[in-house]
């Protein structure tokens, strides 16, 4: 098994090189470069000197063709240096570190909520299979699953921030903190962040909730048809015990592998949702750096997402072998 994962690791590294190379090329091919964006932001009244521009181009590595600049970037990354952001005065590593917190606030609380709610929902749907209440529940979940998160976000915003304005249920439209955040006491700060994060977490959670409970129900139905369930029933095990110890424990296997695959989503943030709620997380950073043509930040983020995706896939396979003795990679 070790050799299997070693080989996977090697192939993964190769894939990583390919991905970053292609993305670097694509990014450099987008029209406009960070210099232009910066000059536009400076305003027309300041006429930059030609040698200034040349100096900055050299500093940013824009005077090299992109495939050479890629290797400059790569050699720095290997030494652990992600570079400096072009549009902000900070290193890429620091920028990412700043944004990870807010994204985790949303993704982790949403993941916990999803697991806490979807397991009982999925099990309830299996136990009541075919009954009217199960049909209603499943249809509702299916509709939630098809509801685009940005549509839901906009509708919730209109409802909570505009329609309920002035009532006790009013929720802030966007941002993570209020303007007077620094002057608040510690518990008031917590409440403030919670009020701000309520809608983003809700929008982030419901789709996953619908997906997971359907996933759990589908797996349970598959397991319940197995012979060993019939055997357990035949030898007189009570229905509750069959349900929990024989059926449910076996649906944990696909759930564990799913956890590996959700790893990248935990840190990548949701680009559109963070944009709608102006949530200062990774997704927003990604969107902003695309707009600012901030090559190093963009590359840093892409590198991180790709590493996480590849690790997540490997982790899923590894966990699969760990929890299911039938699987081996010998």
């Amino acid at each position: 098994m070790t050799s299997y994962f070693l080989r996977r690791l090697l192939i993964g590294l190769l894939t990583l090189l390919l991905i970053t190379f292609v993305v670097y090329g694509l990014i450099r091919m987008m029209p406009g470069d960070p210099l232009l964006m910066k000059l536009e932001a400076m305003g027309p009244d300041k006429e930059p000197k030609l040698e200034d521009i040349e100096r900055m181009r050299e500093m940013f590595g824009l005077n090299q063709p992109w495939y050479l600049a890629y290797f400059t970037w790569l050699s720095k990354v290997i030494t652990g240096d992600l570079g400096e952001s072009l549009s902000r005065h900070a290193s890429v590593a620091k920028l990412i570190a700043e944004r990870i917190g807010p994204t985790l606030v949303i993704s982790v609380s949403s993941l916990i909520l999803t697991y806490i709610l979807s397991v009982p929902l999925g099990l309830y749907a299996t136990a009541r299979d075919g009954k009217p209440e199960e049909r209603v529940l499943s249809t509702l979940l299916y509709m939630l699953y098809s509801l685009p998160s940005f549509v839901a976000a906009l509708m919730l915003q209109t409802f909570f921030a505009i329609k309920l304005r002035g009532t006790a249920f009013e929720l802030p439209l966007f941002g993570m903190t209020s303007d007077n955040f620094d002057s608040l006491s510690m518990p008031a700060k917590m409440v403030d962040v919670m009020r701000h994060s309520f809608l983003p977490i809700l929008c982030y959670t419901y789709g996953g909730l619908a997906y997971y409970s359907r996933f759990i129900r589908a797996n349970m139905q598959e397991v319940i048809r197995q012979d060993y369930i019939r055997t357990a029933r035949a030898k007189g095990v009570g229905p509750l015990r069959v349900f929990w110890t024989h059926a449910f424990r076996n649906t944990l296997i696909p759930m564990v592998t799913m956890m590996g695959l959700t790893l990248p989503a935990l840190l990548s943030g949701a680009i559109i949702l963070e944009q709608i709620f102006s949530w200062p997380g990774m997704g927003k950073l990604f969107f902003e750096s695309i707009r600012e043509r901030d090559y190093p930040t963009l590359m840093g983020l892409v590198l991180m997402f790709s590493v996480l995706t590849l690790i997540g896939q490997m982790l899923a396979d590894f966990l699969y072998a760990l929890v299911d003795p039938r699987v081996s990679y010998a």
Partner: protein
Amino acid sequence: MTLKPPASRGFWAEAWRRYRKRKLALVALGYVALMGLVALFSPAIAGTKPIVCKYKGSLYFPALGYFNPRWENPIFRTDRFRGVYPANLKQKDPESWAIFPLLYQDPYRRVREGEWPNQPENPTRDEGQPSRANLFGTNRAGVDVFAQMVHGTRTALLVGFVSMGIAAVIGIIVGACAGYFGGWVDMLLSRVIEVVMCIPALVLILALIAILERPTIWHMMAVLGATSWTGIARLTRGEFIRLRNADFVTAARAIGVGRAGVMFRHIFRNALAPVLVPITFGIAAAILTESALSFLGFGAPPPNPSWGALLNDGRTNQQMWWLIVFPGVAIFLTVLAYNLIGEGLQEATDPRLKQSS
């Protein structure tokens, strides 16, 4: 005398029989068909150009201009109609007659006072609540939302079919080659699939759109297609690996069927059913991505009514709830319909579930 056994139903007839049993899936199919009709007849449902008109002795169909501006006869431009038909027709040719669309509202411009009998001017700014003249209200510029949504149906439908068509062709060819040939071809193509999967879709889409000078809706569809084929490719690859050593394939090879013939006549036709399922789900995803891109402001440029662009309007004017609710519900229902069709297909074509029905 020989006894002929009753002909057994074919695979697709059997699948259709089982699909029909799912009411929701049937309703979804009906919804998509209805959307197709709305898209096809959009210029006849809402517009300001006559469907048919007799002008200076000949028949014209100016409403076709909504499909393609070149299909609107240039005579109306040289006669200085400026897009306003009712008054100009009367004034420039008293003998003329015209059949107008059901609703006199334009998806691109504001309808003014007195253009159409008994119809008030479209309100502007945030005063355009839904009313009798503007069923779904108007946006800040006074353009009717219902007309934009009817014409946006075309975009939504096209995006789904064209981009998934492209994705299906790429995915099936790549997956078929990887699965059939195996070895280093498989190794190489699998890496390509992995790379495309790992590149954030937004970077790929934005970069590809950014390379183009003036992206149109067709470019968008091509880009969406070029980025969303990986799931189909992986599934096709799996099916081909499963089937490449089946007896009927060996038999086909033995009687001298060529490589392409074996791949696409024999294996692919047996792999079609499972591949159709992710294609249907992909249509839903493509519609979602297109509206999300338009929503973020990266969609096709303006003279192109899109549900996502309407939502984007609503995002900056959140007190105008009608800019959010109507397109939002339309996107939701469409995605839901394709998901239901996909699920219906999955259950109808999955041989493991045959006994249970």
